[in-house]
Structures are given as structure tokens and as C-alpha cells.
């Protein structure tokens, strides 16, 4: 089984080298692990720093959004025939130790899409993030009929079938719910595993802004009316 860890990154020069270094190079029962950094039009040294780390780099010449970067990564995984893909945020918000936990249901053929959920176990999460994420979970449930304890999680694992079949259009934050909708449409098995949430002042600054909630919600609606 060969796997790729997709790291979307936009202006992450402060943490990108550390994030890449932290990703495990070996996991039991995975023959080969590659890292693909999708540089989403960074204007800082992200691309240069990542290039020094012996990883694959896909560069968007201009910024297209997190959803677009993830899709580029999945497209690359599909073309290069990977059996497993993991999406792992480039801002250091995820614990690399959770990768094996997220891929486990896929390796055991129990799931095609695994969501690493920050809210499946109690941990120290800022109250505003908790509230916004639960609102997003409710919106995903009411608009798409899918319930997830962390619909906006950036830590996911995709089986070969999911890599091949999930085809989402959203380019910015609203892509998270669309992935779930696609998985439901294609009758893929969805599973959730608890992950650690690392909230640093850097990751909070780089992550989804609270004020983004309204435009993201508006885009969900437009997508439905379209």
C-alpha cells in the first residue's frame, strides 16, 4: 500500500519545515509514504523551504483557496495511483502522531473516508471555535443531511476509492461539507476518529477566521440554489 500525505500551504514559511519534518516517514503496513506540499500561491518562502525537504511540490501560481489545494493534491494522488491519501494542514494544527489513527479504518477496510475529529473527545478548544464548528456541523446536517462531529476538519484520510470518486467543486472553506456530501452521494463509508487539536496563536491567526462563517454559509446556500 502506498500513501501520500497532502499538505496544503499558503504563506506558511514560519512552520512549513517543522510540519514536513514531523510527518512520519514510515508507518506499519504502508510500503511507501510520500509527502506532497500543495503551495497555494504563497508569496513568502514556503515553496523554497518545502523544496529543500525532499518532498513533492505542486505549486498554484495564484492563491485559489484551501479546497482547491486539497483537490489538486487528491488529483495528483489519483493520477499517481496512490492507495491512500491523508490531508494534513500546513499550519501545524495537527498532530502527526494521529496519522496512523486516521488511516487505520481504511487499512482495515472499514471506511473510505475518515474524518479526524477534534470534538469527538473533550479537549481544550477555544469557545469561539467550538461554537462556530458546531454551527457548521448543524448547517451541514440541515443542508446536506450528513452529521459529522467535525465537518470542517482539515485532517482526513481517503481510500483509493474515495480518491477516485470524490469530486468537489468548492474552492474555499465550504469544500469541507461538500466532501461529506460527495461521500454520501457516492455511497462511500464514512468514519470519524478522535484527533488532538493543537491551537497555537499562529494556527489561530492562520486558520479559518470567525468572520468567514457568514460568506461560507452563503456559499452553501448558493450551491444549493444553483
Amino acid at each position, binding site marked *: 500500500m502506498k500513501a501520500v500525505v497532502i499538505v496544503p500551504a499558503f504563506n506558511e514559511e514560519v512552520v512549513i519545515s517543522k510540519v514536513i519534518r514531523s510527518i512520519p516517514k514510515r508507518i506499519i503496513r504502508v510500503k511507501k509514504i510520500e509527502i506532497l506540499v500543495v503551495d497555494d500561491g504563497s508569496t513568502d518562502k514556503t515553496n523554497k523551504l518545502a523544496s529543500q525537504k525532499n518532498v513533492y511540490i505542486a505549486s*498554484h501560481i495564484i492563491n485559489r483557496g484551501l479546497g482547491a489545494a486539497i483537490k489538486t493534491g487528491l488529483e495528483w494522488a489519483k493520477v499517481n495511483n496512490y492507495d491512500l491519501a491523508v490531508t494534513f494542514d500546513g499550519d501545524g494544527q495537527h498532530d502527526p502522531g494521529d496519522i496512523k489513527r486516521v488511516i487505520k479504518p481504511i487499512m482495515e477496510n472499514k471506511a473510505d473516508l475518515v474524518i479526524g475529529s477534534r470534538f469527538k473527545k473533550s479537549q481544550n478548544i477555544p469557545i469561539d471555535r467550538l461554537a462556530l464548528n458546531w454551527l457548521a456541523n448543524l448547517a451541514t446536517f440541515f443542508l446536506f443531511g450528513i452529521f459529522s462531529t467535525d465537518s470542517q476538519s482539515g485532517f482526513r484520510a481517503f481510500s483509493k476509492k474515495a480518491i477516485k470518486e470524490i469530486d468537489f467543486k468548492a474552492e474555499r472553506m465550504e469544500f469541507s461539507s461538500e466532501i461529506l456530501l460527495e461521500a454520501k452521494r457516492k455511497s462511500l463509508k464514512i468514519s470519524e476518529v478522535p484527533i488532538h487539536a493543537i491551537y497555537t496563536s499562529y494556527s489561530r491567526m492562520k486558520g479559518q477566521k470567525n468572520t468567514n462563517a457568514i460568506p461560507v454559509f452563503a456559499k452553501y446556500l448558493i450551491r444549493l440554489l444553483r
Partner: protein
Amino acid sequence: MLTPIQLILLAFVVFAISRVYLRAKEKILSPQTYVFWMLIWLAAAFGIIQPGTTSRLAQFFGIGRGVDIIVYISLALVFYLVFRIYVMIEDLRHEITFIIRQVALKKTSKISGKHSKKR
């Protein structure tokens, strides 16, 4: 006899029709869009020349004045067009992203690795 405001509005409608015709001739507008805009502007011209028609239409729909029905229809049309433009912009964004993705995938490589792998 036409009033000054009717003449001004008619002149604008003639200008708008000429633009629609020219853009269709340049094949910028599709035949459907050409017919849609022609109908809109011809209806406007008819309403300007025969203002009584709008009053009769308003009465038919149970609306007080002729001008009110024009405002209602125009607003609905403008909202719909804004929505269509939004969808069109979204489509354009997707097309741009598609091109950027294809370029990125074509150039994806392991720069400092021993085995350079390209699509």
C-alpha cells in the same frame, strides 16, 4: 405626440437595442441571450410609446399604478440577473482554478529528491 421624457427614454432604448444587435453580430451574445434582451428592450419601447398598456397590465394583476408593475418586474429581473452573474463568476473561478491545477500537476516534482517524478 411624445413628451420629452418619452423621447429621452426611447433614445436610450434605441441605443440599448443597437448595442444588443452589435454584440450579437460579433457573436458575443448567444442567439437565446439576443432574443431575451431584444424582447426586454422592445417591451420597454412599447411601454414608453403606449403608457396606457402598463396601466392595463397593472390593473390585470391588481396593482395600483402602471409604473408600479414596471418597478416590480424590473426589480425581480435585476435580482435574477445578479444571481446569474454570481453563478457565471463562480464558473469562471472554477475554470481559472482548473487551469492553475493542470499547470501545477504538470510541474509537480521532487526538487531535491534523488528520483524526480513528473506527470
